[in-house]
């Protein structure tokens, strides 16, 4: 089956070479980081997690988003998702691989990463995150591949696969819940210390994951003979739209609690993210344009995606998916992690700007994810098209 | 076998390259390393053979015992001499020359322990 990824047109190979070039560039930056230390990044004593961990957090959501395809198809026998469920599973594989790479890039002593297994520590949420992420990767690789391979052979998949698929459904919820628990169980970081964090993570995941999937599906409709089907696309719009609405409702709840209670600790980070925080005669606001853009794109994207469906407009649908994906990416992949470090534990403000090397490594890990995604999708749609003749 | 004409020569070339160091060095007798022992001390904390094979295990035990269990910082040899259970302040007190003691074997066996990333060798010029 894998041989399907080795045959393709010039466009396919150009895309592969483009991704490999970015990976190679990032690899060189990583060598630099490995030799110098994490000081080569923009992180500091006050902002100890930067773009690596924020991308990791966001991508756990993209991985969990696959659930929104697996659940209707396998539990509710929603047949219209038959052609794209495998795309959800394969997207989860690519996203989890990116997550693990971002964690490795962020470690000060990557060679010692397996200490987490050598000295298992159940009271650490990072230990559990390691377990659920690797488990989820395993489940999706096995289920996705087994189901596709059965289809390739023209038979129904084995019975045991079904049980692993059932297991993967609560497992998808667990990966993002545990990832939220990394943050929301820390005393002293008011912005993260909120019980709504895990629900909010899940809501944004169930919007961002399917939005990316729908976007990729639209691109594939342009570049290949593969068609998702109108019913499936319309259903995805419902999922994305309502999940995004829920996410913004949760964000609104955070705003209410902070500003109605007027507790300074609860307001500081939101002040910093959306209006700029004044401290010692200086206003810190480097994330304000991003957060406002995120809010705007989200609030425009939600009605737009429903309008796009009503008008059956592919272009509008793609635009609204891009808006929503970017909005949620900024919200969680930037503001949530970086915002938590402002103010510092000594009531100061330190702003974070990623370095060139850091951005290069980040781009390379994204490219690795798209590389894996491209190969897997190539195999998947070739098999699907072959079966349908 | 499919593609026999290419696979078997390729395998042979691969095997040849992999075992190249063995061919290249065959027939040469290598000098076993001779770590220089301290002149003024005759006895180590454990018998020489045990130290030779498992000093690294003992160092890890000292570390975990002292750091985590509040273990004793001092020990006594079989002959009753007191010593400090510490690489930097114990071992290196007698084996004062890292290059002539530690490094001779470590270089020979191509191991790079990370002890010296943090611990200081006696009178190390940084």
């Amino acid at each position, binding site marked *: 089956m894998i041989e399907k990824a080795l045959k393709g047109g010039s466009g396919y190979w150009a895309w592969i070479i483009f991704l490999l070039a970015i990976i190679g560039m990032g690899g060189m930056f990583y060598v630099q980081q490995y030799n110098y230390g994490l000081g080569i990044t923009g992180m500091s004593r006050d902002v100890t997690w930067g773009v690596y961990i924020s991308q990791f957090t966001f991508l756990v959501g993209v991985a969990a988003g696959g659930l929104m395809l697996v659940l209707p198809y396998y539990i509710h026998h929603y047949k219209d998702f038959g052609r794209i469920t495998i795309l959800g599973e394969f997207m989860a594989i690519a996203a989890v691989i990116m997550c693990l790479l971002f964690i490795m890039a962020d470690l000060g*002593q990557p060679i010692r990463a397996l200490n*987490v297994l050598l000295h298992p520590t159940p009271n650490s949420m990072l230990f559990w995150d390691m377990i659920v992420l690797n488990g989820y990767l395993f489940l999706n690789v096995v289920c996705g591949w087994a189901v596709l391979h059965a289809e390739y052979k023209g038979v129904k998949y084995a019975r045991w696969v079904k049980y692993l698929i059932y297991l993967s459904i609560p497992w998808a919820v667990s990966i993002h819940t545990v990832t939220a628990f990394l943050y929301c169980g820390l005393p002293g970081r008011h912005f993260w210390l909120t019980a709504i964090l895990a629900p909010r993570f899940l809501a944004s995941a169930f919007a961002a994951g399917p939005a990316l999937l729908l976007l990729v599906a639209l691109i594939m409709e342009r570049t290949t003979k593969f068609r998702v089907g109108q019913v499936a696309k319309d259903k995805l719009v419902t999922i994305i739209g309502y999940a995004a609405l829920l996410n913004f409702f949760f964000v609104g709840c955070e705003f209410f609690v902070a500003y109605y209670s007027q507790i300074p600790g609860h307001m500081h980070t939101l002040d910093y993210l959306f209006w700029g925080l004044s401290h010692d005669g200086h206003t810190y606001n480097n994330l304000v344009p991003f957060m406002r853009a995120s809010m705007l794109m989200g609030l425009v994207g939600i009605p737009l995606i429903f309008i796009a469906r009503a008008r059956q407009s592919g272009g509008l649908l793609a635009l609204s998916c891009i808006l929503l994906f970017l909005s949620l990416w900024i919200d969680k992949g930037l503001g949530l992690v970086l915002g938590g470090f402002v103010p510092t*534990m000594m009531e100061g403000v330190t702003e974070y700007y990623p370095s060139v090397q850091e951005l290069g490594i980040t781009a390379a890990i994204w490219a690795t994810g798209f590389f894996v995604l491209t190969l897997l999708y190539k195999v998947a749609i070739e098999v699907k098209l072959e079966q349908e003749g | 076998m499919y593609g026999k004409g290419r696979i078997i020569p390729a395998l042979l070339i691969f095997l040849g390259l992999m075992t190249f160091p063995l061919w290249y060095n065959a027939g040469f007798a290598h000098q076993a390393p001779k770590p220089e022992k301290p002149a003024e001390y005759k006895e180590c904390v454990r018998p020489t053979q045990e130290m030779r094979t498992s000093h690294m295990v003992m160092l890890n035990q000292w570390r975990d015992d002292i750091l*985590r269990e509040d273990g004793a910082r001092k020990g006594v040899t079989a002959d009753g001499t007191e010593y400090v259970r510490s690489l930097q302040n114990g071992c290196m007190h007698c084996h004062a020359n890292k290059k002539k003691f530690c490094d001779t074997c470590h270089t020979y066996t191509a191991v790079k322990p*990370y002890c010296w990333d943090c611990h200081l060798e006696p009178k190390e010029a940084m």
Partner: protein
Amino acid sequence: MKKDRRDFLKVAGLAAIAGIGAPSAFNMLLKGEATASEQSAAAAGQGEAVAAPTGKRWGMVIDVRKFVANPNLPAKCVEACHTIHNVPNFGNPKDEIKWIWPDKFEAVFPDESHYKRHEALHSMPIMTLCNHCDKPPCVRACPTKATYRMKDGVVAMDYHRCIGCRFCMAACPYGARSFNWRDPRGKDENGNPFIKTVNPKFPTRMRGVVEKCNFCVERLALGQIPACVEATGTTGAMVFGDLNDPNSEVSKVLSANFTIQRKPSLGTYPSLFYII
């Protein structure tokens, strides 16, 4: 019918067992990080520090009045600690590593920073170091047990095991932890080493691990007091001792003075007390 009832009872029984088991399983999860957790229920919500019931618990009282009276004392403490422990000085706040440092009142005690506070509080140097909490959030967060709490209350680190994930730094509500963003044994552009004078008796750290104040465990083991306390000499600016021994100097100072702690509402039960 009969069979159905039996099934129901089975399920109900299992559910009951799960219900009873869950809290103890949760306690097991949190185990190994606090010895005072038994009493925490009694003191919860009152922000009151509870000492470990038995054995030694090292603690410290910092008398800020003495630091105000001796303006060169803070620098002396920092110097003593950082020299003994080979703490590097990178000369910039981004890479900074510090075990002990003087900070502003409102930075150390944000909960006490109401407006119209006493004029003297604005310029007061408050010595800041690891609180060696009884319920340390950093220990809870560490995925490898590279940081842990010893029986005598010292929150210690094993630098051999640290993977550099910096979860402990996010977890510590006191900003007490530093990361080795670059090689501490390196040199700056002018060729000056980051560690100016090396103490040959103590190791340095390596790139990529977290470090912090160790309450001078290596000195306590030899019967000495922490270096910063020693540096304050006879001023009484820092008093160190066993909080569980009612006759120790630190216990006497504590019972005779009104002291405050950093962020007591977080329930970390620090071992450090301040006299303002």
